[in-house]
């Protein structure tokens, strides 16, 4: 190998769901790929907090890149999920009309869905909605049925993509902040907090830092305008209160407040849609959360009796544009993947396929890929048997989510171990149930502390 040749064929900046999907795509295609992440783990930014839905793209802007990526992403996830051990709850969705204006908007929603090629979408009567969803408030006026909408898991999917990329020879570089870069003929030398890193092509999928990273290559044509979404997770006993994803009639800015199941058997209410300047902190706010709960109860009155399990907030990397900002810059040996808003989880595998084609078009043919290695992630849903149900199981550490010691230990080892406590929780669900760690914090720390520094310090003079 030429001594001046870049260490990697491709450096991907940002290990959110889009970065992980692209990492998988090009590792499978035979490139030497580095996935560069400033956080301690994958999903340290926008991708860790969203509604975890697999959309059909029925309500996307027809002809947009977002619509195309969602459609392709939706199809690819369905083809892939079993091999990678990923959940798929085929719940369908119902857009519910609560006012005459909503009702008048339904035919337009159906027409747009058909324009988007989602042909099984159809309007249904109020009676039909009530039969399907008996817990909805009586005063609904009608609905649109979207059979293809589904519930997935926002954490295990990118984890599976990243692990497959690693299994195919890719490299994950956590705790690596890209601070600058310079381009030479053979490619880029990126300055990072861990030293220089050379790659023939750079992919910017830095999420909420997308415009800042873009400025390494050129004045950014887009500006990130973070949009915050807050959510409330309700207790597992609320799960039966909605079977389909309950959507409101959307407005220009947001899809509105959704009620849906989660892959782990909870019920989710959210999100809000709030513009903010801060790109780092997604705070929850009591008044907004109470507002979400009130909206949820307005749609499903029985929610009033259900306890809250937890709350969270995410920042979606919106821009001044409605569509994704994806562009290949062959001269700059740079690919921009920006402005991937709330649809990134659905769109990620479609975006990766789109990039595959862009790469082949602008940067030359890809090497012959090796046979894909399948790297299923551990099952965390009740759809399939879990370790706590098996004879010979070890100690259950997290009693709310029924997580065993072995599952926690495994998540701290292997090819992509949890980089921080959040990563451990996302990989195992420990401390994520109704008690939120009241009963299990010490037992989790006992296992995790040697691997995740900085959580606890020994008490001097203590024998333990």
């Amino acid at each position, binding site marked *: 190998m030429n001594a001046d040749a870049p260490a990697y064929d491709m450096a991907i900046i940002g290990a959110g769901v889009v970065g992980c999907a692209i990492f998988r795509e090009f590792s499978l295609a035979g490139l030497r790929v580095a996935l560069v992440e400033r956080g301690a783990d994958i999903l340290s930014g926008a991708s860790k907090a969203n509604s975890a839905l697999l959309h059909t793209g029925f309500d996307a802007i027809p002809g947009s890149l977002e619509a195309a990526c969602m459609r392709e992403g939706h199809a690819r996830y369905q083809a892939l999920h079993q091999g990678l051990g990923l959940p798929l709850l085929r719940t369908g969705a119902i857009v519910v009309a609560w006012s005459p204006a909503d009702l008048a908007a339904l035919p337009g929603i159906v027409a747009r869905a058909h324009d988007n090629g989602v042909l099984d979408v159809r309007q249904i009567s109020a009676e039909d909605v009530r039969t399907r969803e008996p817990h909805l408030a009586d005063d609904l006026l009608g609905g649109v049925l979207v059979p293809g909408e589904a519930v997935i898991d926002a954490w295990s999917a990118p984890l599976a993509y990243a692990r497959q990329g690693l299994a195919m020879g890719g490299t994950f570089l956590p705790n690596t902040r890209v601070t600058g870069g310079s381009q030479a003929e053979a490619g880029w030398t990126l300055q990072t907090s861990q030293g220089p890193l050379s790659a023939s092509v750079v992919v910017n999928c830095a999420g909420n830092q997308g415009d800042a990273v873009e400025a390494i290559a050129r004045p950014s044509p887009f500006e990130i305008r973070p949009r915050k979404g807050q959510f409330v997770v309700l*207790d597992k006993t609320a799960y039966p209160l909605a079977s389909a994803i309950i959507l409101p009639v959307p407005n220009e800015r947001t899809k509105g407040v959704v009620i849906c199941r989660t892959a782990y058997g909870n019920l989710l209410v959210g999100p809000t849609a709030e513009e903010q300047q801060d790109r780092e902190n997604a705070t*929850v706010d009591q008044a907004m959360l*109470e507002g979400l709960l009130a909206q949820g109860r307005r749609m499903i009155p029985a929610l009033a009796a259900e*306890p*809250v399990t937890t*709350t969270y907030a995410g920042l979606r990397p919106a821009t001044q544009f409605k569509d994704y900002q994806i562009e290949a810059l062959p001269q700059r040996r740079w690919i921009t993947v920006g402005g991937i808003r709330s649809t990134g989880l659905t769109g990620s595998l479609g975006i990766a396929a789109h990039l595959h084609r862009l790469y082949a078009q602008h940067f030359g043919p890809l090497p012959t890929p090796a046979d894909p290695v399948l790297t299923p992630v551990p099952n965390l849903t009740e759809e399939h048997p879990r370790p706590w149900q098996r004879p010979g199981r070890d100690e259950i550490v997290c009693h709310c989510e029924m997580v065993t010691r072995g599952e926690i230990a495994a998540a701290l080892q292997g090819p992509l171990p949890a980089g921080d406590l959040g990563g451990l929780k996302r990989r195992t669900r420990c401390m994520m149930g*109704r008690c939120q760690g009241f009963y299990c914090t010490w037992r989790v720390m006992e296992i995790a502390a040697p691997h995740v520094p900085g959580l606890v310090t020994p008490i001097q003079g203590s024998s333990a």
Partner: protein
Amino acid sequence: MMRSAIIIGGGPAGLSAARTLVRAGHDDVLVLERNPEAGGLPRFAAHPGWGMLDFHRLWSGPTYARKLVAAARGAEIRTNTTVTALLPGGGVEVSGPGGMERLWAHTVLLAAGIREMPRGARLLSGTRPWGVLGTGAFQELVYAGGVRPFQQPVILGTELVAFSALLTARHAGIRPVAMLEEAPRITARRPGDWIAHHLLGVPVRTATRLVAIEGGARVEAVRVEQAGRQERIACDGVILSGRFVPEAALVRAGPLQFDAATGGPAIDNHFRCTDPAFFAAGNVLRPVEHSGAAALEGIAAARAMAQALAGTLPAPAQGIPVQAQGGLRYVYPQRLLPGDAPIRLCARASGEKRGRLRVLADGEVVQERRLHALPDRRITLTLPAAVLRGVRSLSVELA
């Protein structure tokens, strides 16, 4: 095999019930404990304060837990065994080291205890950093783990458990920067605030509301509001105490009637649930009593279970429904089956209130007394059997 009794939960209530049943001659009592050892929450509070009500001794929490386990000798205690569902008629589905199985008994006691409400359920504002813990989790880190998660936390809440957290902090060399209380006075009996301030050097701030938690990976500060003025208090952790939730998820998902007001199963005056094979005692009944009170309830429930096994307990019946009204958060038992003995009711006020505590039978006042109620303080009243004769419904109010 059909046992006499299965007890769900090996804490003060469950172990006291087991001891009582063994002494009543039952040699097939099974206690199911999901943790690796029995003893319950007192295991993690190593300062004195336990055993007074039931053993008439003053022990540390871990000593008390060991005594409870030792006194339950004769019952089988199966640890590392989690009940995953209640089955109508006296069954439980469990996950144990041997896998999943179903167990059955003539009587089943729910004694699963209690936990604190986490930050999410409180809808607390702010970021979600590491270092926000309930008292229970904090005490287990310190006493079982020998580690500390922070150096200078704030403590949210001022009931008895918050002062227990304060003592735990002192043991661990942790210096809380403040105790915060929304109400105009502390919840625990005085002189808790005096002790906190003068002996432990921790300022107690009443009429102060936590507005938001700040910090990235770790807690960096809290914002509080007092008399309309906001202030930032630098700290590296938050101990959440003071709002308790019965660990009654099995009831909410199962065949028994759940009382949204107590957060626990609805019982009659024999600690019996709506499925007569099930009984309940201790803090699973409501938020929260000291472990000694939970233990005494475990004993009382076990006596009822022994009577049920002997066929001498009054037959289950609809009974007289009891309702909490104006000024009261809840009252239990939720159903009364009057007999010859007086019946004790327990209630709790919604907040601090001076007024008259009244019992109304079919709308008529049958008992009344003056009461200065404090939040999180138990109100008890005893009804003579005669008062209940021929009554269709009962309500209790603080007006």
